[in-house]
């Protein structure tokens, strides 16, 4: 309890409070820009911390990181551009809500559930860091493979009516993830002599191409002008969100997000896909997902923000950066003299408490600031689509290029857009492709490490966690095929009885 109070004491200092406020605004704006991922936002914020003390610097960076994940949802909903990879799922239902004239509702749900996810995970972390760190330590390559495989197994849930096409899309994503230097042997795969492809395929250009550019092309064919249509700033009022009806969705997604975030190497993107798919599986009306279902937005946004809190556990308690943003933060903390690892709780507990207290405060501030920022962004919808669409395309090009200052990424984005148009026409699933791309590297590297450590695939089943996760995955994969037969048989039996 003392540690928690100490954390709040640090962040309620007026100087630190100003840094947190500035960090929230910066993070939300950075996150909203395509191509500026949460990791890049943290990196861009790094120079500001050089003159700060250790504790304010950490509070500032944590704020930027958390707020950037939230900021990604704004452009995902308004322009179908996922600002960060973790907001890809938000596009699926957020944008159809906007098309229905519910931009304000979608944004309100995204921002408030983001805050809820962040606060939930921060509170869990505060109370259970040691215990959760111990659990996370039990997750080796086989367990991580099982988690990633579970992520893949939910793929069929993304579009149950087109299971085969969804699987094909997912496999394409997994195939794309194989391009580049392989993670274990350092072998060059499928680069066809291109130096640019050696680093692999970046997620942002693919997402921007598949979602944002395809949407602009669709509007181009439709000749529809959103600015003069029904979506104007007048119906973007943030009210009547119906959050109480979504309480279980929010709770489930917060738990999934926190749990996935704790696992080193996993992250906000996987968390959002997993909780989105979980909602589809548990929903009585799965057919509404992807067509503007508020629960879809809530699930994705709660989980990706909860994962940011979770990712602090391996970073602080074990010194393992779970992702790129965590690695940047680790570098910044090392500069400031923080010794991350198991001894941190004993030797420098103030850092741990500051991080979690900052997350709680950022969650609260984010609601206020993000709604303000979102309202400014929604005004953009009043611009005629001939300009808005062009701006989205320009932003997409810049976003793809900015991923690593490489023109090849713009080409990848253009190809992804072309494929995306065909995907739309022939009912393939762009989100399954993205899921495959996100999970491909994690799945492969952990499978191969697991096989090496366990001396064969059979060794995977020695771990109870792996066994349970793989069984659940198998059930989730097979249920869409077996389920209808089982239901038919049960109906027949009932009739006969």
């Amino acid at each position, binding site marked *: 309890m003392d540690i928690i109070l100490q954390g709040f004491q640090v962040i309620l200092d007026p100087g630190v409070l100003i840094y947190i406020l500035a960090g929230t605004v910066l993070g939300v704006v950075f996150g909203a820009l395509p191509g500026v991922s949460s990791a890049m936002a943290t990196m861009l914020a790094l120079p500001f911390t050089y003159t700060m003390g250790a504790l304010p610097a950490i509070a500032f960076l944590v704020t930027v990181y958390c707020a950037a994940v939230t900021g990604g949802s704004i452009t995902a909903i308004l322009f179908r551009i996922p600002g960060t990879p973790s907001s890809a799922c938000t596009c699926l239902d957020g944008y159809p809500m906007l098309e229905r004239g519910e931009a304000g509702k979608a944004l309100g749900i995204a921002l408030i559930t983001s805050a809820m996810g962040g606060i939930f995970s921060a509170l869990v972390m505060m109370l259970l860091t040691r215990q959760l760190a111990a659990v996370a330590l039990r997750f080796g390559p086989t367990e991580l493979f099982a988690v990633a495989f579970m992520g893949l197994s939910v793929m069929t849930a993304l579009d149950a009516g087109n299971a*085969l096409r969804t699987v*094909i899309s997912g496999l*394409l994503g997994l195939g794309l993830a194989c391009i580049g230097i392989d993670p274990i*042997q350092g072998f060059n*795969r499928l680069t066809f002599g291109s130096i640019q492809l050696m680093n692999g395929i970046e997620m942002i250009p693919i997402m921007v191409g598949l979602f944002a550019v395809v949407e602009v092309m669709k509007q181009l064919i439709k000749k529809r002008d959103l600015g003069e249509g029904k979506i104007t700033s007048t119906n973007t009022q943030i009210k009547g969100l119906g959050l109480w009806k979504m309480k279980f969705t929010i709770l489930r997604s917060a738990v999934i997000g926190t749990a996935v975030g704790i696992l080193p190497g996993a992250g906000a993107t996987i968390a959002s896909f997993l909780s989105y798919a979980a909602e589809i599986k548990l929903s009585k009306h799965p057919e509404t997902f992807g067509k503007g279902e508020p629960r879809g937005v809530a699930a994705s946004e709660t989980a990706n923000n909860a994962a940011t809190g979770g990712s602090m556990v391996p970073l602080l308690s074990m010194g393992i950066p779970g992702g790129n943003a965590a690695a940047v933060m680790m570098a910044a903390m090392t500069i400031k003299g923080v010794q991350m690892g198991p001894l941190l709780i004993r030797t420098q507990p103030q850092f741990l408490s500051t991080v979690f207290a900052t997350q709680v405060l950022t969650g609260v501030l984010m609601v206020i600031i993000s709604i303000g920022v979102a309202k400014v962004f929604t005004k953009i919808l009043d611009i005629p689509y001939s300009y808005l669409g*062009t701006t989205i395309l*320009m932003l997409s090009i810049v976003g793809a290029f900015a991923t690593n200052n490489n023109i090849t990424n713009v080409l990848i984005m253009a190809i992804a857009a072309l494929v995306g148009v065909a995907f739309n026409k022939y009912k393939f699933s762009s989100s399954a492709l993205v899921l495959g791309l996100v999970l491909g590297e994690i799945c*492969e590297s952990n*499978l191969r490490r697991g096989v090496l450590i366990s001396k*064969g695939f059979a060794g995977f089943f020695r771990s109870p966690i792996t066994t349970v996760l793989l069984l659940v995955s198998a059930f989730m994969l097979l249920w869409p095929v077996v389920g209808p037969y089982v239901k038919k048989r049960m109906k027949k039996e009932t009739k006969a009885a």
Partner: protein
Amino acid sequence: MIFELLFNAALLLVAVICFVNITLVAPEPIQGNMNAAQWPQLIFGLLAVCLVINMVRIYRNTPKEERNLKPLKAISLQHLLGSRLTWAFVTLFGAIPALNILGFFPTGIVFCCVFTFLFGERKPLRIILPAIIITLVLYVLFINLNIMLPRGTGVLRSFHLFTEGIFRFR
């Protein structure tokens, strides 16, 4: 049907090429572990099988009277050139080498002009002025975030370096 089959066939071709490529250049297998080629082989193998099943399903689910090549014959160059989507993609793909050679500024302005035109705007001032504003705003925003945009080559590179000096505020 025919276009859908062709799209699936194109994906199948990609899957087969990738499978063959990774098999031909596969590294030596490591004892007790998977090598770098096995995972991609599994993925592309499965992908090829799924695509074949999908193609068979498409063919079977199409009514017999629609199983023909008529839609292919109906395509004409005139039809393609008249499509706004074709021009949009030509502009998008054309912008890539242009960004490398001309840099962000000229390419961005021309790109915006073309797309504004494709969206139906016809008045020259309403095309050119917003194009300059959009390009300039994005340029200033990103160079101030230390994200360097394409500078082009030759004189245009010097021009971009000059503008970066002007518009960078810190």
